[in-house]
């Protein structure tokens, strides 16, 4: 399974945008989506999210694992929330009552029109956020990660650290696989031994420790290289200059407008409250 980030959206409309647009759009969209619990508005957000995602032209085959994981995990979280909440539904209008369909066998959790709508709303919201977030990993040029965060106001040392982190990911992944192979050649069996979680955690020690210690010990060259170039003594400049063009400004204005509109709607109308479709209510 390949977890390494790849620049799959290269050349797409979204990848041609100023990279700050990708970061700010996600931030705005997440802040927008978390304020709204009206499914009708969220349906609109989903359309925007998937149009945005489509503009990154990420081949589905290459991110099939990520989508499978996201759908499975969101479904699991939403279902767990229904169980753990034991029938309590948040964001309902004060005077609303629940219309119970049935009780879950074993758990005894009431399943109502409101709890089903809450779960669906939560599911839709997460999927919209994921659709907007995914291009950040696959349509952002890794070469400009550092300058992107620096121009967004992150102190340049930490912007450089983010850049460095992204560059380390593929090599550490390769080191990890090499360590697993090397330990297997030496006779390590990851699937045998105690079956309890503690025994299984301890079985990871021969993999985890060499991977971590090698990575830290190998950092000395990077640290020396940075020290020799006087890293940290004066403010760093970046090779790439970033400039917003007209389209970038329009995209950002759209996402900011969405954020402001949803904030206003959440405070002044019922957008922050759960909306239950009438057909979900028995006899409604």
């Amino acid at each position, binding site marked *: 399974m390949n977890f390494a980030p790849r620049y799959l959206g290269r050349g797409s409309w979204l990848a041609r945008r100023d990279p700050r647009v990708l970061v700010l759009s*996600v931030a705005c969209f997440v802040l927008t989506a978390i304020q709204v619990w009206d499914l009708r508005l969220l349906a609109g957000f989903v359309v925007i999210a998937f149009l945005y995602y489509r503009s990154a032209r990420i081949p589905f085959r290459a991110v099939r694992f990520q989508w499978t994981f996201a759908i499975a995990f969101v479904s699991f979280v939403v279902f767990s929330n229904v169980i*753990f909440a034991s029938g309590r539904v948040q964001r309902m209008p004060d005077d609303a009552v629940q219309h119970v369909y049935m009780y879950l066998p074993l758990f005894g959790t009431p399943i109502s029109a409101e709890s089903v709508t809450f779960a669906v709303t939560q599911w839709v919201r997460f999927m919209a956020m*994921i659709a907007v*977030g995914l291009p950040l990993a696959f349509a952002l040029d890794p070469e400009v990660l550092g300058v992107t965060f620096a121009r967004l106001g992150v102190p340049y040392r930490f912007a450089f*650290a983010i850049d460095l982190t*992204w560059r*380390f990911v593929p090599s550490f992944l390769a080191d990890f696989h090499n360590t697993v192979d090397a330990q297997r050649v030496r006779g390590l069996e990851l699937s045998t031994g105690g079956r309890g979680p503690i025994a299984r955690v301890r079985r*990871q020690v021969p993999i*985890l420790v060499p991977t971590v210690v090698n990575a830290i010990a190998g950092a000395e060259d990077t640290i020396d290289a940075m020290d020799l170039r006087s890293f940290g003594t004066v403010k760093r400049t970046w090779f790439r200059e970033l400039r917003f063009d007209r389209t970038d400004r329009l995209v950002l204005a759209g996402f900011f407008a969405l954020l402001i509109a949803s904030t206003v709607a959440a405070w002044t109308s019922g957008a922050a409250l759960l909306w239950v479709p009438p057909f979900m209510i028995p006899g409604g």
Partner: protein
Amino acid sequence: MTAATMNRSSLWSVDSRTIVYSAIGAALYGVLVNVVKIPLPGSTVDVRPAFALVPFFGFAFGPVVGLFTGLVGNMIGDQISGWGLLTSYNWSIANGAVGLIAGLAPLFLASWLNRGLSMRAVAGAVAGAIGVVIGLLITFTDIIKDAQDVSTSTTYYTQAVIGDLVATIILVPILVYAWEPVKERLGR
């Protein structure tokens, strides 16, 4: 610059070493957190052995490194897996807080750090455990962010704490034991 030798001012210094160790911690955590997950019987939570890297990097290299490792590492892990960088940003902040608190060990476990290696290894586990219990309290912000029920948030918090404590208590002392001789050899 390890937990044993840090003074109050050097805890917060940011030099090339801090930057590189932060990047290494975040990259390792981001990569490994999705690779190995061990289910805890009778719960919906997984033990993620890679989580031990957050308190370890905080404890070994300071609070700034710990904060960055937890915060950025969790974001990168979420992003690579498909969950999205900011979808659960409050959990990333909580992870960062765990590393930060573990990195503050010289302030609240100073006497333990000046004893032998075995005591420092225990101090790593204790600092990490304190970090987990306190840092993950931030996940209760799901009550506001996701309109989550208090009992649901409590269940998630408890499960996350149990899973992360298992990884921290077992693996942090082992990592401290493995790293300290290498550190001496490198002359750090």
